[in-house]
């Protein structure tokens, strides 16, 4: 079962993709609900709003623990929350993805756009439509982080270990490649003694 963090944002779009893939999903709105999922999607939305609700609900510690054992896929605001560093005090990132991210790196909504991009992962190559909505930019990236796609020479899709972060929204175009990559690396709860 894959969880989708449901504090705010385009939860339903992710839910639809998982459904199309035949993967069971469940919306996570309380920290205790992390115990029943084997992967988590942090959707697009407003990272300042999600920070706010995550703090009020006590998500930081359990989510950081969760990410040690299970994969997390973040799109846009999700990527921002997964990052090691965000240059904006209004957002408190979880810090398990070794990248620095700038919010609204392309500017306001009028600069949002869709573009065909090339994704290369696990020897698989695929062209998809990527929609960037007030998208962040990845400004710095650790050596341990793999680039899965670039736009104008800058990384827009990255993977470190089991985690994947995207500056754009494949879920708005029904593109499931990153969900497949994430679940492909999924670890079943049964194999991890502490998470029975």
């Amino acid at each position, binding site marked *: 079962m894959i969880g989708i963090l*449901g*504090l*705010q*944002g*385009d*939860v*339903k*779009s992710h839910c639809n993709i998982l459904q199309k893939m035949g993967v069971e999903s469940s919306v996570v*709105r309380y920290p205790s609900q992390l115990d029943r999922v084997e992967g988590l999607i942090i959707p*697009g*939305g*407003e990272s*300042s*709003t999600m920070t*706010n*609700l995550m703090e*009020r609900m006590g998500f930081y510690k359990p989510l950081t623990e969760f990410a040690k054992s299970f994969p997390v896929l973040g799109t*846009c*605001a999700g990527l921002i929350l997964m990052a090691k560093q965000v240059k*904006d005090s*209004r957002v408190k990132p979880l810090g398990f993805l070794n990248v620095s991210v700038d*919010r*609204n790196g392309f*500017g*306001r*909504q*009028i600069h*949002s*756009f*869709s573009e065909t991009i090339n994704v290369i992962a696990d020897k698989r190559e695929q062209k998809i*439509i990527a*929609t960037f*909505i*007030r998208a962040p930019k990845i400004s710095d990236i650790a050596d341990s982080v793999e680039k899965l796609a670039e736009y104008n020479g800058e990384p827009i899709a990255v993977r470190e270990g089991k985690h994947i972060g995207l500056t754009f*929204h494949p879920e*708005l*175009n029904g593109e499931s490649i990153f969900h497949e990559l994430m679940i492909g690396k999924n670890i079943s709860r049964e194999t991890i003694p502490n998470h029975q």
Partner: protein
Amino acid sequence: MNKESMKVKIGLAEMLKGGVIMDVMNADQAKIAEDAGAVAVMALERIPALIRKDGGIARMSNPTMIKETQKMVSIPVMAKCRIGHFAEAQILEALEVDFIDESEVLTPADEANHIWKYDFKAPFVCGARNLGEALRRIGEGAALIRTKGEAGSGNIVEAVRHMRTIQTQMKELTIKSQDELMAVAKEMGAPFALVEQVAKTGKLPVPNFAAGGIATPADASLMMQLGAETVFVGSGIFMSKDPAERAKAIVEATTYYDDPKKLAEISAELKEAMKGLDMSEIPEGERLQERGW
């Protein structure tokens, strides 16, 4: 206007789902809204309750006020233009406002025509009282629909009426057969292709938010349970005795809208809500929802 650019406009509305969009009258209020967890702010010089009280012509906000708000917060900043006033909309687009609300809260500029919203790169949100009105606005290029409710009333009754009407009309469409749809389109005064689409999917082709009268966490919960995907709170926050606390409470109530225990907890600490108006206190000619068609 190609399909991709419409998708980019609707994309922002998708990102605002499950959140609260708050009316603010200055940069300080915008900061309070952002700190409380708002997903966006609507920058306007007077909130609807004050427009109602002061009278006169309500116009687009001063660009300085909009710019100050944009400087203060990182979340999307929306602003309102008068119905049919495409020059105001052009100015708002030049200011790089994230969403333009062609709003009945301001005094209409054109009684016959709404703005042709496909001409703009900025996305538009428009109010609706029923499915026909929603589909007409979508036909003109709106990327987001909200119920009109009765702005500045602090009374949820009209927003409920409009949301229920839209939901019921959509349900009714799904059981119609193809040969009945043209008659529905004629009766609703809605574009046929959109009527056909709703009949097939049972939902609007753009997100559907609630506005007009939300004043408490319970109001937000009610609208979400009735099918709203996000709530706009206009006068409800800054006309109350405790704007910061109320803003936070409504944000939480929108996320946990289906958890009554949590809602009880959230609502317990709040002071007095805005006083509000019974619909009988608003003469028919003064109802903001009657503006636009």
